[in-house]
Structures are given as structure tokens and as C-alpha cells.
């Protein structure tokens, strides 16, 4: 494949996972303008230019696929091609658009029950987030209790609270969708992540300063260790994603 001769572009649109329909519509719009999705996710998207075809997109959430071949075959049968899958179980499908065909041709869920099952799978995945956040609350309280820099504990609690808020917003949204209500406005996930990021950077920097002032080099080492660990994990995730895309 002469990949380098092709025009590609990357976008950084962010979507809350329960707003997946907005993501689908964005891929449809891009395809109409000739930008065909190569790899999609709710954080970053890669496109390739080809205006000879228009695709329609659908996202499926399924983290419990026992037989990937059977899964792909079922979709292929109806003309769907899997573009890519994300690490947490989202699958992006596309089908060449033919204006002669009825709209139902471009929907992978044709009854409320099965669409509900998909939403419930995602909801169950979200419940896992609560466990993690509870752990975080425990940690924050301990820091609040033992550290001279109590504000760090307060800040951590605040960050945890924000994430709780987002999780609850997501669960409420899924429940609304399960009752058959349409999603009208996307969640302001970018603003949310930005605020969370600012809070975490502030916490990290101030915690580092406090530790230097207190002269606790062991604790400073721990902070550096955590940061390095985070970078390694992020790098591994990016690398895994690149490898996955190349395999296609």
C-alpha cells in the first residue's frame, strides 16, 4: 500500500462515551467531505482523504465477545466493515452509503431491546469506575489526616468528586436513553477534562513543592516515580494503538 502518498489528518474531538451517537454523526459528516475514518476513538480520530465514496458509521459497545470471527462475520453479512476497536470494547463500523436504500440499512440495532442491552453493557462497565473512585476517597482522607499539607487531600477529594459527578451524569444519561429519550446535547467533556487536568497539575506541583520544603526526598522520589510510571503507561498505550492500526 502506498500509504505515504495519501492525504491524512488527525483530529482531537472528545466525546463522553454515552454520547456515541454524536461521534457517529461526526464521522458521517467527515465522510461526506471526503475524509474517511481510519481509526476512531472518543479522544482522537485519524482520517484519510478519499472522495470517491461516502460511508455511514455506527458504534457498537461490546466487551464480552467470545468469538471475534463470528462477530465480524455477522456484521460483514450486512455490509458492515469494522474500522477499528478501542481497548475498552468499542467497535467502529462503516458501510458504503447508497441514497437509494432506506435509513434502517444504516442502523446496527433495529429494536429497543438489543440497543438497551448494549447500553446496559456500557453501564456495567461504568459501575467499575465507582470502585476506583471509592479507593481514591479513602486515599484522600488519609492524606487529609496525616499530611501537613491538608489542602492536597482536599484537592484530591475535589478531583474525585468531579469524577464522581461525571460518572453519575453518564449513568443518568444512559438511564434516560434506556427509557427511550433522545440525547439532545453532548456533554461538555472537554471543559470537564480541562478543569480536572488543571486541578491535578496544581495538586502535583504544589505537592512537589511542599515535599521539597519539608525535605522528604523519599516522598519526592515517590512522586517522580509515579510521574515516570504514568508516562510509561501512556507511551505503552500509544504504542499498542499504533501497532493495532498497522496490523490493519
Amino acid at each position, binding site marked *: 500500500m502506498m500509504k505515504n502518498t495519501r492525504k491524512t489528518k488527525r483530529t482531537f474531538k472528545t466525546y463522553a462515551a454515552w454520547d456515541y451517537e454524536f461521534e457517529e454523526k461526526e464521522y458521517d459528516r467527515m465522510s461526506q467531505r471526503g475524509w474517511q475514518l481510519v481509526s476512531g476513538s472518543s479522544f482522537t480520530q485519524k482520517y484519510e482523504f478519499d472522495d470517491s465514496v461516502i460511508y455511514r458509521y*455506527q458504534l*457498537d459497545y*461490546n466487551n464480552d465477545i*467470545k468469538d471475534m470471527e*463470528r*462477530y465480524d*462475520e*455477522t*456484521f460483514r*453479512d*450486512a455490509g*458492515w466493515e469494522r474500522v477499528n476497536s478501542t481497548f475498552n470494547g468499542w467497535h467502529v*463500523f462503516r458501510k458504503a452509503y447508497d441514497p437509494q436504500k432506506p435509513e*434502517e*440499512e444504516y*442502523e*446496527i*440495532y*433495529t*429494536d429497543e*431491546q*438489543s*440497543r438497551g*442491552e*448494549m447500553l446496559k453493557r456500557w453501564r456495567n462497565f461504568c459501575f467499575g469506575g465507582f470502585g476506583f473512585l471509592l479507593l481514591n476517597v479513602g486515599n484522600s482522607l488519609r492524606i487529609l489526616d496525616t499530611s501537613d499539607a491538608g489542602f492536597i487531600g482536599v484537592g484530591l477529594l475535589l478531583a474525585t468528586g468531579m469524577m464522581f459527578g461525571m460518572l453519575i451524569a453518564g449513568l443518568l444519561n444512559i438511564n434516560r436513553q434506556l427509557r427511550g429519550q433522545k440525547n439532545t446535547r453532548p456533554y461538555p467533556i472537554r471543559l470537564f477534562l480541562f478543569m480536572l487536568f488543571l486541578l491535578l497539575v496544581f495538586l502535583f506541583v504544589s505537592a512537589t513543592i511542599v515535599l521539597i520544603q519539608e525535605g522528604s526526598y523519599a516522598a519526592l522520589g515517590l512522586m517522580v516515580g509515579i510521574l515516570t510510571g504514568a508516562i510509561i503507561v501512556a507511551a505503552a498505550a500509544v504504542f499498542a494503538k499504533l501497532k493495532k492500526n498497522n496490523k490493519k
Partner: protein
Amino acid sequence: MGKQSEPLTESYFYILLCLYGGDNHGYGIMQMTESLSGGRVKIGSGTMYGATSNMLKKGWIIECPELGGERRRMYRLTDEGRRVCLEEYRRLSELVASAKTVVEENA
């Protein structure tokens, strides 16, 4: 559990129905459903995968090896699946009979 006595969705019923006369693959089931229902019922791929996964789990259908030139995987109705399909058929027939009685009485 009482699961079997719950009404089936249209997609579920049509899938069972499409396998009643013999093995079929996913594509065949989608086509047959559309033609049987005069184009009213369509089974999307997500719905199809979810339904067949549940049915495999419940033991209503099994996957069976391809025969001849067919490269697609085929599904086969089990005795249990056949029973569920017939039970639903009886339930639906009863509904139609009841409706008929009432509607004709009040015509």
C-alpha cells in the same frame, strides 16, 4: 426462571422461525426475515449478534460446520429452540384467536 414463557421479541421469533425449516447462516436469516415480513422487520447486525449470542448461551441454537461450498458459519435449531419457537407460536395463535373473537363479536 420463567424465562421461556416471556414473549420473544420479533427479532428473536423470526430468527427461530428462519431456522425451523433447516440450518441457515446469519445473512440468510436476515434475508428470510425481510421477505417473510414483507420488508417490515429488519434485523440489524448488532441486534443479530446479540440475539444469536444469547440463543447460543441458552442452548436454543448451535453453530454447525459448513457444508459444501458454503464458507459462512451456519446456525441450527436445537430441540429446546424448537420447543421455544412452537410455544411462542401457540401463544401468538391464542392472542390472534382471542382478538378475532372479540373483534368479530363487536363488528
